[in-house]
């Protein structure tokens, strides 16, 4: 099955260094023939490799702004994190500038986030979900759970993310307002990350996303700054402190109003805590918010501003917003059934060696033997992230033990020694009369 990924490689820029392979949380990258190669099925689109690549060879594929032209009525869905990107723009200035870029309407994802917070509180109160309930707002974390923590799939909050909720609401409202057909209305998410792009193409928990395109925050950034200079500021901001708060890590957890919640950012940290959850050590916890990027969505690989600066800005912006606990929305606008997941989340089998247990264990033994022969330095020079991963790659036939420079060096040393020894051995027929 071919699986779309937003995170891709620019081969021309890649120098074949080993920075990305060492940081990938699912060991999904190898360097082969001097270039990085992403193992598609393992990639969760967290964007760690985009951040760490010194040559900017890792890209997040987003939709072209031209996609807008295919629709009669265009709606921008700015992620809450967009508000933290600009030095002195207010939320209304940013939203007004978006209209000047060519959108007919803006629908704040932060507003939908408030509604998701409300539904989350209701779901937690009902208590039907396995505890701790794990947030499903970060698609990279959901994929991470599928691949590495399949026993926690049932803990995932089975509600659409604010992005998908916003798309449902925005389309419904626009159909009512304009009388246009669903296909004539284009809904575009302005994203801080690659994982959201992938989650639109390969939806989580739903058959099809209502999003028609995902634009990179980086691409829109310059346009907003330019338009903001001349824009007529309109009063468009309607999201509350809780909704905009989702931009930072902890925002979603705050919106659950449960004291027994924790939030963790950075995909490696998320993995550590998921491990604790799987061991049953955090059973007394009600809610777990895990976000792949440091700082939360404001730390996304497509965000422009430094995440710590942006975090503080979001904090300052939210202080001025209404502090209401319940969202403003009309109950008739959307009901719980519309945002509830319709599709079961499947576990991923990509880490499995073989379907047959005894075959898989036989392979494991071969890997163990191979691993013992490797130096255990995890240097990455072979193009695999660790010695263990190289041992696995060798067993699978994707690499050879001479890809390890230390084994190769040893081999050369022995060969040289042998050559030297041989050179000293002059055949008897030649040594005669040579004096």
């Amino acid at each position: 099955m071919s699986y779309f990924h937003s995170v891709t490689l620019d081969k021309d820029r890649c120098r074949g260094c080993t920075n990305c392979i060492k940081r990938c949380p699912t060991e999904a990258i190898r360097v082969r023939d001097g270039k990085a190669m992403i193992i598609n099925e393992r990639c969760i689109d967290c964007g760690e490799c985009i951040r760490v690549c010194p040559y900017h060879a890792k890209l997040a594929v987003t939709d072209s702004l031209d996609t807008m032209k295919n629709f009669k009525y265009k709606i921008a869905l700015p992620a809450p994190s967009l508000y933290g990107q600009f030095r002195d723009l207010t939320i209304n200035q940013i939203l007004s500038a978006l209209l000047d870029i060519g959108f007919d309407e803006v629908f704040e994802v932060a507003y939908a986030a408030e509604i998701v917070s409300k539904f989350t509180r209701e779901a937690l109160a009902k208590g039907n979900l396995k505890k701790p309930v794990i947030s499903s707002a970060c698609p990279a974390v959901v994929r991470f759970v599928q691949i590495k923590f399949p026993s926690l799939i049932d803990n995932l909050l089975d509600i659409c993310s604010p992005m998908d909720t916003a798309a449902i609401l925005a389309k419904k409202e626009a159909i009512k307002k304009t009388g246009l057909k669903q296909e004539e209305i284009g809904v575009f998410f302005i994203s801080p990350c690659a994982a959201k792009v992938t989650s639109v193409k390969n939806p989580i928990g739903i058959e099809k996303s209502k999003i028609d395109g995902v634009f990179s925050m980086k691409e829109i950034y310059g346009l907003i700054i330019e338009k903001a200079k001349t824009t007529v500021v309109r009063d468009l901001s309607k999201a509350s402190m809780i909704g905009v708060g989702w931009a930072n890590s902890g925002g979603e957890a705050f919106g659950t109003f449960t004291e027994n919640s924790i939030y963790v950012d950075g995909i490696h940290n998320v993995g550590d805590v998921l491990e604790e959850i799987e061991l049953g050590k955090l059973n007394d916890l009600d809610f777990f918010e895990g976000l792949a990027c440091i700082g939360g969505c404001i730390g996304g690989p497509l965000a422009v501003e430094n995440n710590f600066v942006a975090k503080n800005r979001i904090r300052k912006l939210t202080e001025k917003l209404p502090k209401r606990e319940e969202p403003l929305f009309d109950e008739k606008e959307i009901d719980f059934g519309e945002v509830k997941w319709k599709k079961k989340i499947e576990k991923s089998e990509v880490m499995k060696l073989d379907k047959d247990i005894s075959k898989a264990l036989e392979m494991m033994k071969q890997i163990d033997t191979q691993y013992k022969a490797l130096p255990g330095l995890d240097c990455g020079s072979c193009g695999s992230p660790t010695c263990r991963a190289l041992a696995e790659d060798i067993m699978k036939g994707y690499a050879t033990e001479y890809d390890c420079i230390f084994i190769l060096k040893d081999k050369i040393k022995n060969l040289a020694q042998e050559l030297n020894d041989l050179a000293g051995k002059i055949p008897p027929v030649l040594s005669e009369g040579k004096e």
Partner: protein
Amino acid sequence: MGLLVEVVNEMVLYSLDFDVKARDFDSAGEVSSNLRSVLKQLSLNPDVVRRSCIACYEAEMNIIIHSYGGHMEIEIFGDKIRITAEDTGPGIEDIELAMKEGYSTAPEEIREMGFGAGMGLPNMKENSDFMDIKSSKNGTTVVMEILFK
């Protein structure tokens, strides 16, 4: 044929073993972490993986907290996992009492670290399909099995 299958299933296909040091909280969880990475590569029910890791983790913690040190062996069969945790130490005085949730003999300083809540043995029992404890004044041996249902 039926018999042959049974014999095949009784064969240890893969094993792991570890020494566990008393009071070595720095390496706490390493055994279960290793077990997890092995099991994740097999086509097993995620619940079997989770239960095996919990049972293994609790046994590992018990050796660290209560014994003078011990040894753990994990054997994987065609149809189950067997975890054997063996230690030298004071042993468990009253096994029945120790199996009660919340009963703990862990010293105060260990409880302050967030361990020794008296859930170790009950968790091991709950997460395994078979469990046997033998204990004397010289040490304890716990054997647990988790079936690949």
